[in-house]
């Protein structure tokens, strides 16, 4: 493949070199200049309709739409010249004449591009004295509500459904200022990826019913994370308000999910806020479990495991760090580990290559397999009579009383304590994935970091910490102070992970090395 021809141009006095065919808008991004825009989105075909990105190109007769104009050698572009500013001011005024100024009750306020650009560049007062046009709110089906009056008709939603979801449900109905986004007769936004139109909407016209009136944008705390709801590993932002997760949104990653996430992943966050959580370590005293200090509980767990063959049943949504430490505990003897994965229908996003809601509804199936855990529909089959059962946050529905009676000892490490496990010898409470940091390995072997988004309840500790302490108590080197230390130890001991570190992974992740001989 031949190298793309490079073009040099000047944008706002900064010289920039980009590949031929790049738009002025993208070239400006490369030069560190934001050209205000509404209809343009890098994940959608160019429409060129909002006319907000008009820029002045020297020697051109008219202002040029930066999104739809290709760069040319030697071009000199002014984004903030008087002429360009006047044009944008004009567009903003036109967009606002029929836009209700209901920012105080609009979910988008605070993250609204119309608000931002109006504040930055718009007129300070309106000149319209005629009544504004009015249209009622419409239910678009799925999770989406259409507040017609706020719509600026950028058509991002229409283009997403047409070209990315490839299920044309939306259209522009009517003409002139009567135009609105319409739904084709008898159709709803029920495509498994249609929730993305809410993120794509630059204003408060398309809203999530789930998030409706839940929070103001400026009240939210955000943490970069990875969606734990399937093996795709879409990059996401976990948004919390008062330590409660209220919304998951996609975070762009060219190599994984572009700009999108599916509705299943987006809406499956309530478990992160569960309140029936284990809040203190528990130790068995005769026929009951009693709260204990961490050291006492770790001690009790270690004593229960010591001298027995261990069979671990783990959750396939544990981090690589936690699974690595469990594997090391198993590795002391001839222990075995298994997991079961919940499955559901696969739902691809046709417009993006290799992006789908995967059938395996767990975050780290790939990581668990790479670290030696066996995938099985009967993960307790490996439990022999007298074995110690180490149950790490797995789905309790795999258990029955017989399994527990067969076990020589039961140690539970988890976020909750199901009734059936009340016979355990020791119970260690851990943080769930949004309460700790760590890494997942996705379906394509990409290792991606997730950061902590909320505080864990009570005395619960990050899983890597608890497992590290347990490992140390069992006499292995296992005292870690940071999740990154655990990952460094993992990278040092497992060839697939060698060369990777939290620093090199960054927030976009990196693929693991292909194991020698494979591929």
């Amino acid at each position, binding site marked *: 493949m031949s190298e793309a021809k490079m073009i040099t141009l000047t944008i706002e006095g900064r010289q920039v070199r980009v590949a031929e065919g790049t738009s002025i808008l993208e070239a400006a991004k490369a030069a560190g200049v934001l050209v205000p825009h509404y209809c343009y989105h890098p994940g959608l075909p*160019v429409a*060129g309709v909002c006319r*907000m990105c008009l820029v002045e190109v020297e020697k051109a007769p008219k202002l040029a739409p930066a999104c739809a104009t290709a760069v040319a050698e030697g071009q000199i572009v002014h984004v903030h010249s008087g002429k360009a500013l006047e044009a944008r001011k004009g567009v903003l005024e*036109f967009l606002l004449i029929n836009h209700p100024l209901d920012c105080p009750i609009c979910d988008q306020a605070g993250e609204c591009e119309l608000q931002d650009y109006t504040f930055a560049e718009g007129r300070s007062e309106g000149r319209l004295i005629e009544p504004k046009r009015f249209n009622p709110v419409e239910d678009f089906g799925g999770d989406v509500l259409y507040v017609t009056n706020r719509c600026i*008709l950028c058509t991002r939603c229409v283009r997403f459904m047409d070209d990315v979801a490839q299920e044309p449900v939306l259209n522009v109905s009517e*003409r002139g*200022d009567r135009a609105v986004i319409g739904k084709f007769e008898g159709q709803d936004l029920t495509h498994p990826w249609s929730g993305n139109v809410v993120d794509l909407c630059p204003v408060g016209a398309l809203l999530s019913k789930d998030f409706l009136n839940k929070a103001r944008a400026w009240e939210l705390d955000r943490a970069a994370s990875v969606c734990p709801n399937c093996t795709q590993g879409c990059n996401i932002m976990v948004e919390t308000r008062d330590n409660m997760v209220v919304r998951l949104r996609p975070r762009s990653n060219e190599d994984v999910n572009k700009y999108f996430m599916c509705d299943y992943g987006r809406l499956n966050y309530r478990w992160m806020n569960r309140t029936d959580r284990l809040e203190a370590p528990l130790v068995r005293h005769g026929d009951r479990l009693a709260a204990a200090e961490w050291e006492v509980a770790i001690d009790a767990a270690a004593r229960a495991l010591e001298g027995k063959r261990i069979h671990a049943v783990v959750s396939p949504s544990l981090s690589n760090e936690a699974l690595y430490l469990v594997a090391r505990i198993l590795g002391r003897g001839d222990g075995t580990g298994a997991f079961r994965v919940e499955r559901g229908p696969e739902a691809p996003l046709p417009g993006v290559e290799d992006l789908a809601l995967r059938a395996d509804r767990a975050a780290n199936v790939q990581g668990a397999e790479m670290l030696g855990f066996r995938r099985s529909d009967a993960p307790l089959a490996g439990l022999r009579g007298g074995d110690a059962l180490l149950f790490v946050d797995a789905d309790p529905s795999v258990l029955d009383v017989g399994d527990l009676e067969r076990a020589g000892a039961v140690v539970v490490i988890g976020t909750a304590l199901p009734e059936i496990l009340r016979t355990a010898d020791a119970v260690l409470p851990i943080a769930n994935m949004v309460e700790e940091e760590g890494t997942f390995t996705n379906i394509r072997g990409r290792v991606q970091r997730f950061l902590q988004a909320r505080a864990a309840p009570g005395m619960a500790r990050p899983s890597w910490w608890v497992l590290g302490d347990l490992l140390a108590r069992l006499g292995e080197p296992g005292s870690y102070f940071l999740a990154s230390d655990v990952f460094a130890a993992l990278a040092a001991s497992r060839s697939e992970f060698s060369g990777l570190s939290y620093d090199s992974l960054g927030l976009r992740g990196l693929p693991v090395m292909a194991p020698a001989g494979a591929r």
Partner: protein
Amino acid sequence: MGFPHKSHPRETPVLSTHFGDSEARSLSGWRARGGYRALEQALGMTPAEIVNVVKDSGLRGRGGAGFPTGLKWSFMKPGDGKPHYLCCNADESEPGTFKDREIMRWTPHALIEGCAIASHAIGAETCYIYIRGEFTEPLQTVGAALDEAYRDGILGKSAMGTGKRIDIYIHKGAGAYICGEETALMNSIEGRRGNPRIKPPFPAVAGLFGQPTTINNVETLAAVPPILTNGAEWYKAMSLSNPKSTGTKLFSVCGNIARPGNYEVTMGFPFREFLHDICGGARPGHTLKAVIPGGSSVPIQTMQEADATLMDYEGFVANGSMLGSGGVIVFDDSVCMVRMIGRLARFYAHESCAQCTQCREGTAWVTKILERMENGGGTTRDLDTLLELSENMTGKTICVLSDSCAAPVVSGIQKFRHEFEAHINGKRCPMRSAAAA
């Protein structure tokens, strides 16, 4: 010919010779009047030869923009392996324009012949005639003529037995003004919403179905057969002023004029004489006040400007307007300019495709202000607002619909400011009697 009036001696009928002559509609009648000789001749020529003749004739687009036709055809490269298309723009919807309608009503074979010649010249096997949906009679006459032409072997797999395939289809519009914009027209033919496309790419590169396409107006294509028959020199010689404007032009005249109708004159004819002599001037008891010379999208001329104009592409520009489509709308002293401009703006607001912000919102807003002004609610500040909005609506959108809405507003305020001020100061329309108001 000044259809529906009889021909005026100062007209130069070329396209309008057979207007009103129902026999010219049939194939036999058309043949008897010399029809299809030009096509026969063209099919014996190479495409490049035809393009050169049209180039030499100086023929320019009659739809409004005035782009040299031969040059446009030369952008098409026959033999590039791609299917080429010809679109005939018969979506004549510009207010005040009704010349294409008469061509299709009376001489449908002239259009078909022009289409066939142009198809050959640009290497197209397929031509679409996009006819405005409201044109029920032209749809029927062109449809009947097409049937005849197919039956006679003029069109089809082997046009006139030469082995060249030329197919012509009629595509009926659904009533949107914007579909007369060339790229919106192509979207409409493709079955999409009639929204103009961003240019580039231009139609000659990627037009209908993404293939090289040429799009010409009815009057342009109908002028091609006589050019081939009589030669480029004959056509070029028909010019009374600027050598860049050649041939004849059909003008549709309507409004407050004694004899409204279609008139065909040589390029460069004095506009004053055209209005007063050929069209009969003002109605008795009235004086003319203003004229929109090229369809509603061009700036308004005062009578002073109109009187100084020579009717060609350059002449109208030199006097504050444009030749446009040749739809002449005449206003006399009974017309309220504020109301008239408000009505025009309302048309554009109704027809905006809603893609570009400035057009979607601007046309509607301008209409609201003008209508409020007409009803006596205007202020001096509104005039500044109107001019500023018009500035924001000009040269910033995908197509020129919003520019077209701004043109009469700006020229109206500039040239008839006193009428706007009379509305503002009197708090009512001075043209309406107190009782009526």
